[in-house]
């Protein structure tokens, strides 16, 4: 008898995905479906020939909002809930490393988000097809970038979850995600607040994940070409951040005394 690292990680991932499904996380898709239907029907009558753009904007924004909420609020419970409820204890006695446990949790929630985003994309493309007779597959590039951003949010939530309670982790994660969306403000801080030292601005800019770069909604909706090289670099950036964040989480979690 023996199990490989991958087997164990996948076992935890599968269980985590099952948990999110049974805890009815995917019900948010119902709201999304309603939102898409409504926007598809109503918008055309209201705007001045803007319906296609508006449907795309609503669809992508909803994906962003729902996805981020799930990533943060389910993500912060991934580890802290298990510690608080002590459901982790029987698992650690088995040949499951703490790092494997974390990776499995991350993968499980990541997979749930993938399912969520895929379903929403299908819904959006269907709505576009129904209202304008044309489904723009270029949207999928924005969806992919958005998904990378969501994975980052999960990793952040996971990190804070290993450090503190669910509530504090939720607050911290939300703050960092919001700060990350203001990366352009941080970058331009020198113009707004010249007194701030340069090293501080740099530290802040590179220290907080830049969520803005994963936001390709504007270029995609306006039909700007988004090169595969851009997507490639975004993927690498995401991987780099993921390894930093999950690596930190693993280090923090390894030596921690559980109650």
């Amino acid at each position: 008898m023996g199990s490989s690292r991958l087997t164990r990680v996948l076992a935890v991932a599968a269980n985590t995905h099952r948990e999110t499904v049974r805890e009815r996380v995917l019900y948010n898709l119902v709201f999304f479906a309603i939102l898409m239907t409504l926007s598809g029907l109503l918008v055309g009558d209201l705007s001045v020939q803007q319906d296609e753009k508006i449907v795309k904007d609503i669809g992508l924004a909803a994906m962003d909002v729902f996805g981020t909420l799930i990533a943060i609020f389910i993500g912060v419970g991934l580890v802290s809930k298990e510690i608080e409820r002590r459901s982790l204890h029987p698992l650690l006695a088995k040949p499951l490393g703490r790092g494997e446990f974390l990776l499995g949790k991350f993968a499980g929630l990541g997979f749930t988000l993938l399912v969520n985003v895929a379903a929403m994309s299908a819904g959006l493309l269907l709505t576009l097809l129904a209202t304008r007779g044309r489904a723009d597959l270029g949207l999928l590039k924005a969806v992919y970038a958005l998904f990378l951003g969501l994975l980052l949010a999960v990793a952040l939530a996971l990190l804070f979850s290993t450090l503190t309670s669910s509530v504090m982790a939720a607050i911290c994660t939300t703050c960092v995600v919001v700060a990350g969306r203001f990366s352009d403000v941080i970058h331009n801080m020198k113009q707004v607040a010249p007194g701030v030292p340069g090293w501080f601005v740099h530290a802040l800019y590179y220290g907080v994940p830049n969520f803005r770069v994963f936001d390709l909604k504007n270029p995609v909706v306006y039909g700007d070409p988004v090169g595969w090289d851009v997507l490639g670099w975004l993927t690498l950036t995401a991987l780099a951040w993921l390894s930093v964040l999950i690596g930190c989480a693993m280090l923090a979690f390894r030596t921690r005394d559980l109650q």
Partner: protein
Amino acid sequence: MSHRMTNGSAALEVSGLRKSYKVGHIVQKRRLALDELSLSVERGEVFGYLGPNGSGKTTTLKVVMGIVRPDAGSVTVLGSPLGEPAWRYHAGYLPEQPYFYDYLTPFEYLDYSGRLFGLATATRRRRADELLERVGLDRSRDVALRRFSKGMSQRLGLAQALINDPEIVFLDEPMSGLDPIGRRLVRDVIMDLKRRGKTVFFSTHILPDAEALCDRVALLGGGRLLRAGRLDEILSLDVSHLEVLIGWHGAAPADAPAGARDRSVLGERWRLEVEEASLVSVLEWAVARRGRVLSVQPIRQSLEDYFFKELVAVEPSGPWVPRD
């Protein structure tokens, strides 16, 4: 990782274990939970780990399982040091007041546990079914765990500790929350494990359970090991007194024998508590008065009495420390 741990070493070796916790919110002090604890458990024995609440039993188990890290000391399980994962394939653990996932069914939980050991699908499903039947949960196989009572969760905890057919099983308060049927079940499981040559290490504060099941025990108090050894060794010196039952045909005498330190009257019978040294004189006294000696029983000091003798409570709800 499929080799069995057959290298003749002790099942569990603990040496010089120290663990302290910070207590308090603003001003933090260190409280010693384990103080230079050393013990060893032989393969194939049922070892009782005894002590009142707060004595450090659960802390010891948490250190062994890797849930907390000790400040000092070493632990080897089945010959392997704590840090190596190999021994975990051959160990099982039932935590105190276990909590499992609400949204799973017991079968799913056992299946998940089995996956972590790398058991093949058919094997783990078969074992899951067998274990559920063994612990009496086969009819609740597909009931969500959120509906489980404390006793049912405890039984599932026992089942998941055995999913990998372990060589050594660590049970933390296994009888807690169980009705008499459940307790009998746990006893049967432990005896069965012993029969199959497995090692059982279980902690409890219910002494009669330990007396009934254990080959050897360790007594813990205030984080320190007080005594360890065979039960009959620990208690052998402690035949405290004898109980003598005397029946009277006619009228019972008005007085009591000199050697009896206590007397209770049960209808036509007397029950006397007699020191061992005074036994003969009391018997002669009874016979002289035409009493009928019905029985003479040695009353040994129970583990409980031993406990109260050895330990003293510092304050009503505080930790128990050795009396010295």
